[in-house]
C-alpha cells in the first residue's frame, strides 16, 4: 500500500505495541536508525523483542532503549563489544534474555521470513553449542541444522534516500541489514537522509522496492519539528 511520508520520527514509530518484535537495522553505527530508536524511546512501547546485529553501543540509541528496561529479549550475533556496558550489566543481572545467532543465519532467517520460506537447512553452526537441541540432517554427505524464520512486527531501518513511493537506496556498507529487514516485518519504517520525487531514483539501482516500505521519515525532521 502507499507509503506514508511522516512529518517526524514520532509519527513514524506511532502505534508500536507492547510485546512487539522490532527488527533494528545497522552494523555498529552504519545504517543504524538512531532517530527512530530515540522516537521509540519516547513512544513508550515495552516488553519488546529486539532483533539486531549488536546489543547497543555506549549510552545512546539501542543502548538507551535497553537502559529504559523496555527490551525483554534480544536476538543478535554480537552483543559483547568494548562499549556494550548497558547490555552487559542487564545480562549479568538477568534482566534481559539473549539469543545468540550466527550473523549469516540471523540474516538468512529474516530473509526466509520475507521470502515465505518455512525453514531451511544451514551448514552454519553444526556441531557447536549454537546448534544444540536443533534438528540436524545429512544431505549429500554434509550435515545441516534446521533454522526457522525470524519475522518482525516492525522494522526500523536506516537508508540513504527514498522517493515518495518508498523505493530505497542505501550507501556503501550502511546497506547491511536494511534490505533484509525491510522484507521481514509487517510494518517497515525507514529513516532516510533525503526524500526525492518519484522518478528521481534510477529503477536499476533501487535496492529496496517500494512494496516493502510503509513509512519513511527524513532524518532531522523530528528535531526541526520539535524546534518549530
Amino acid at each position, binding site marked *: 500500500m502507499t507509503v506514508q511520508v511522516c512529518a517526524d520520527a514520532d509519527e513514524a514509530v506511532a502505534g508500536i505495541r507492547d510485546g512487539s518484535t522490532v527488527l533494528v537495522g545497522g552494523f555498529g553505527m552504519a545504517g543504524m536508525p538512531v532517530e527512530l530508536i530515540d522516537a521509540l524511546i519516547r513512544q513508550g512501547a515495552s516488553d519488546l523483542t529486539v532483533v539486531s546485529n549488536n546489543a547497543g553501543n555506549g549510552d545512546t540509541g539501542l543502548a538507551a532503549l535497553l537502559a529504559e528496561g523496555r527490551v525483554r529479549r534480544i536476538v543478535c550475533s554480537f552483543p559483547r563489544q568494548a562499549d556494550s556496558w548497558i547490555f552487559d550489566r542487564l545480562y549479568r543481572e538477568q534482566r534481559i534474555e539473549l539469543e545468540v545467532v550466527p550473523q549469516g543465519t540471523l540474516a538468512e532467517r529474516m530473509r526466509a*521470513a520475507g521470502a515465505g520460506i518455512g525453514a531451511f537447512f544451514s551448514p552454519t553452526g553444526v556441531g557447536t553449542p549454537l546448534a544444540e537441541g536443533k534438528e540436524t540432517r545429512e544431505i549429500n554427505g554434509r550435515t545441516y541444522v534446521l533454522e526457522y524464520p525470524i519475522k518482525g512486527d516492525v522494522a526500523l531501518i536506516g537508508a540513504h534516500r527514498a*522517493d515518495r513511493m518508498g523505493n530505497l537506496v542505501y550507501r556503501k556498507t550502511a546497506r547491511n541489514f536494511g534490505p533484509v529487514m525491510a522484507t521481514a516485518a509487517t510494518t517497515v519504517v525507514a529513516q532516510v537522509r533525503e526524500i526525492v520525487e*518519484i522518478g528521481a531514483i534510477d*529503477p536499476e539501482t533501487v535496492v529496496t522496492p*517500494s512494496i516493502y516500505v510503509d513509512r519513511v521519515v527524513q532524518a532531522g525532521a523530528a528535531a526541526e519539528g520539535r524546534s518549530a
Partner: protein
Amino acid sequence: MNSTPSLVENLDRAPLGKDEMAAMVARDIPRGSYVNLGIGQPTLVADHLPAGSGVVLHTENGMLNMGPAARPGEVDPDLTNAGKIPVTELPGAAYFHHADSFAMMRGGHLDICVLGAFQVSAVGDLANWHTGARDAIPAVGGAMDLAIGAKKVFVMMTLFAKDGSPKLVRECTYPLTGLGCVDRVYTDLATFRVGPEGATVLETFGISYDELAARLDVPLAPANADRTPSPAPHAGPTVPSEAPSPGH
C-alpha cells in the same frame, strides 16, 4: 462477512463481456495496491484502473510499476511482461532478479493477484495450469507461486467452459495449482466469494440467484444472507443436461 453488501441480482443486464469482467475486478482493487495480473485476460484489468489509482503492477520477471504495453516505436527487447510482451516503465519502477521477484510473491507482499482458471472449487482450490489431458505438455510457469503468495487471489473466468461444464466446482478434477488459495471469482454470470465457508454469490448478471444455483453443482449462499451455503447432495448432481461434467 457482515461488511460485504448483500447479493445484487442484475436481472436486466446481459452476461458480462471480458472487458466488463475486467472492470468489475478493477473496481475491487483498493487504491495503492500492489497487484500482479496473470497473462491472458487478467491483463485487461490494467485498462480499467482509474487514473490516479496508485495501483502498482508487479511482473514476475522482475519489475514493479510496470506500465502499459509498448506502442510501436517504444519496443525494448529488454523490457517485457510475464507473457513476453513488450511493456513500458512508469516513474518509481524498480527492477530485481527472479529469486527476489518470487520471494516477493511467496513472502505474501503482493496485495492482490488476478489469475485465469480452468476450475475453482467452492473452498478456493485452483486449477489453472494443466488440463490433465494425457498428451498435454505440462507447463506451470509462475502460477503456483502466485496462487499461494498474494494476500488475495482473484480469479477471472467464464463460469462455464466451451463444452458447457461449470468451472466453479465442488472439487477440481483438473490437476491443482494451489489449495484453498482463491478468494474471489469474477465470471460473466456472477461474482463469488470462495473459501473455507464455501461459495457465496455476491452479484449476478442476467441470471437470478436461484437459476445460478440450479446450474451449478456447488453449495451456494447469497451474500449477507442469514443462511449458510445450501447443502447440495454430493452424489447425484443437479447439473442440467446442457452443463455436462468436465470430461477430458
